[in-house]
């Protein structure tokens, strides 16, 4: 159970960070919000990078160096695919995240 929660946290953090990085690109931001997030793009990118770093740190801290790194690298496949498919078929799914960044 504890493993599930720890991995779940790493997964969520990594996924949100990837989504933020995707939103820094105009074409994806337009698909989600209908406009670019030009003003917040720099902040978006910074948050995304920090999120990725944090998820790696959390993975290593909870699962050990070997399994933590392995988990983090493999998560790019899962979360990247989820973000790409959301952007393609259900961009509205990312709108709550994008709107929270506007303010």
């Amino acid at each position, binding site marked *: 159970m504890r493993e599930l929660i720890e991995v779940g946290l790493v997964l969520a953090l990594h996924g949100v960070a990837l989504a933020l990085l995707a939103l820094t690109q105009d074409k994806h931001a337009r698909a989600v919000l209908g406009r670019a997030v030009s003003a917040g793009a720099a902040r978006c990118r910074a948050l995304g990078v920090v999120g990725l770093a944090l998820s790696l740190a959390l993975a290593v801290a909870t699962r050990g160096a070997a399994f933590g790194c392995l988990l983090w690298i493999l*998560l*790019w496949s899962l979360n990247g695919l989820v973000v*790409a498919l959301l952007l393609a078929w259900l961009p509205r799914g990312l709108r709550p995240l994008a709107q929270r960044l506007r303010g």
Partner: protein
Amino acid sequence: MFGNLRQAMTWLHSILGLWLGLVLLVVFFMGSLAVFDHELDRWMLPATRLSAPATAPSLDRQVRPVVARLTAGQALEQWYVELPDARVPALRLQVWDRDDKGTNWFLDPRDGRVLAHADATLGGEFFYRFHYTLQLEAGQLGLRLVGVAAMAGLLVIVAGLVIHARLVKDFFTFRPTKALPRRLLDLHNLSGVLPLPFHIVILFTGLVLSFPGYLPSALTSVYGEETAAFWEESRSLWSRPPAEAPGRLASLDAMVVEAERRWQGGAPAFVRVWHPGDAHAYVEMRRSLADRVSVDAEALYFDGASGALLHASQRQPAASVFGVLAGLHLVHFQQPLMRGLYFLAGVLGCVMLASGMWYWLARARERQALGRRLLTGLTGGVIAGLPLATLAVLVTNRLLPMTWSARADAELAAFGLAWAGALLVCLGAAVRSSQAQLPWRGLCGAVAVLAGAAVLGNGLSTGDWPWRAVAAGQWAVAGVDAVLVLVGLIGAGFWWRGRRRERAESAVVEGLPDA
């Protein structure tokens, strides 16, 4: 010959990718299945769907009497017992006599009962072996072909990175509404870039793992023909000949306790008793790989009569590095989520290969040479044949009675027939149609039907319907069923879409006014 680097790389990427991509597709597909080989075993061998024992079985009280009963009076070279773990609930017992003839049993760890028909199937082992031998054992042809394809794969990846001009910009880009070639290219880029580190690591470690097959001279120049000595030394193994005098065996359970103390909590994966009954009997124990990446199993050797430690394996640095690289590829660790991610990355590898080859063929469609059409048919036959043949094995497994002795052969025949059928259908269609149109709709329908039949067959023949398997904690069975249902739904979805499109097209044709 080439105007610039990019053109040269495009040439390399398409030539190597197209020809060795087919081999790599088979390897990636089978490798993804092999990640869950034990789970497939549970699905294909209902007799081994045991609930995990609450406590580890006692070797002295539960295993030794069974060994004594099964081998009554025989002089043995060794006997070996694989202890049950989270993925394999049955206890596997192997006995080797003095003539090197081995016998295999599966036991229920709770009562030592021999499980009937527990190996009457190809099982997950088939997919695992196919992954690196391609079922071409003669002269290690399959292994060498896989090696060449893996080396080419690494080159193709580098070339692909050079060609891919908008790697960061298109990192998350998939546009399902665009025309087919563009859609395929998006899919190819997406499934190639996201798991890129995984693909590089898996190709490289796969090559490292089988290096004796590719660089045999590294071994033979030092060890000559005595390659077994290399493995003994690199793994720091230990042995001694029998004394040819009778002896007794001390408590195995006590040795397990000592081993666990030395491994600081690590559990033994197997226990092997060498020269049982001899005064020089000794006991070999290897550590379970469930909680580590490396395949260094830290062997321990105990004196059979006294239970004293004789030798503890200590790998040299190079062997330790090899252990980690091999472990990254072999995934012996038992973390279901991590295994799932390996499976996903492997499946993405299949998508990357299939979409890449299909993109090239879809663009080259305007060139209608017979060779191009044959290549289209061959590629389609491999893409469709892999899932069809695998599903045929599973359906055959659930249709035939467990008591039938030729079950494994029948499964293999079903595998070959299904794949040959898919190849013939695709080649035939590609040659007949000037547009090299393949019957995708029918193939997707066949995948859906076979996947559904496998789930139904499992439920009907064992009563382990997916929901019952979940309730009983049979996660391996439930997981295989879940993937089958997903594959079935995807197949049915494509079949349905194809039907709608065909109807729309024929409606347009019928609606045309007569000329």
